[in-house]
């Protein structure tokens, strides 16, 4: 049954489809070598990325370190 309650939509990507998503970002002009974690500044690849978002028009990534993920989600708060 559908309810009228407003829900927080979170987009999710399957671990096996993460590479395709990553490539789509690369195809937008961002080479993989330059993609770094927004929090810890380490290199992010399709293997170790945990989350992403768009901030001020720029796509930013987060690595799979739990502390980075926590801070990343926090930084996106509405």
């Amino acid at each position: 049954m559908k309810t009228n309650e407003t829900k927080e939509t979170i987009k999710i990507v399957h671990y096996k489809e993460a590479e395709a998503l990553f490539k789509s970002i690369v195809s937008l002009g961002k080479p993989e070598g330059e993609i770094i974690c927004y929090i810890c500044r380490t290199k992010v690849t399709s293997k170790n990325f945990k989350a992403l978002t768009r901030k001020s028009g720029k796509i930013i990534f987060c690595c799979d370190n739990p502390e980075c993920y926590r801070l990343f989600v926090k930084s996106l708060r509405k």
Partner: protein
Amino acid sequence: MNILLEIIEIIEKYRLLGLILLLILIIFILLRTLLDEDKSNIWRGKFYKVLYKLLKKREAEKRYISNDVSGRLNLARKQMPFGKDLIPKSIKLEWIENSQGNSYVPREDELVVKLNPAEAQENNITSLAQAMVQRTALIGVRYILDKPLEDAMDLNLIKNLLSKIGNRTILGWYMKNEYMPQVDQRNDLRNWNSKIVEIDERGLFTRLLLVELDSYGKNLAGRPRTIETESEIKGLIEFVFKIANKRYGEVAPLSYRRRNIKIGVLLVGETSKVLWSIEPYINAFAMSLNKEAKAIYVVSFSKEFLKEKDEESEKAFEEMRAYLHKRIEKDFKVQKDFELAYSCYDIRGRRRKAKCIRYIPIFK
């Protein structure tokens, strides 16, 4: 097993009528499950889990993951006691499909999370519980909270949310991999965390502290963080902590008055005192009203095992407690905001039944 035997007994006794009643009961249970979006998500998740185990198809795995996570988290959220409002919002999970993946560009501030295989579902649940709490709970008040305090609240909110799922593996995973490492590694967080844990053990974290913080955030309505707001919030936590940490016979402050927050708390805990007379509580309630409290909480603790030991006293206690609330509603101009019954542990680690009622005084 006993229920099954009882059902068979009823069918044997009433035959056709018994069967019809049983059928109606089954239809009722099925309808209730189907009409509840979260419960039906959990069942859908179970179905796709079986399908995934049998066929090893990615589509079945994805459907299992998303239905199971959203069903469990949204249902757990409903079970969290937050007064009238459920503070964290429900979540809706949407897969970025393979075909979309080739050209997908997230919207501004839209969170995209990579999930793990179905075999690591506890990891998926905790990741999304974190997103749910951090993105949707305590909106409007976070900017005035100290960062370590905010983190301590998030940690305990996520812990509470996961514990409501009722799966020890998920909670254990979170405690081991997320909660404890943070508490162990961060000195700034540890102090606040111990206070929040103590408040939570008395059942006053989500039923009082968060309710008041939420209401504080609404009252402030975007006013900037100042030394005053910072001190008012710290003071509120210290106030609730002193109540939560109060030992038998100790005196704890029962009202908290600052410019932007005024609350009163009545603790009804000593059986002998309640059985003697409720007048001291009525007087204390009147005093809180005189201090212009915006909300007055009546928190009562009965002894969990009093019934087994002394049924008469337990009955008398319950009667006096009910009478106290009747008197409050009759003698004062107040509106009952919510009433939550729960069980918790007292300072000596004994299990106690408790009730938290929030009254809002009506001033002309």
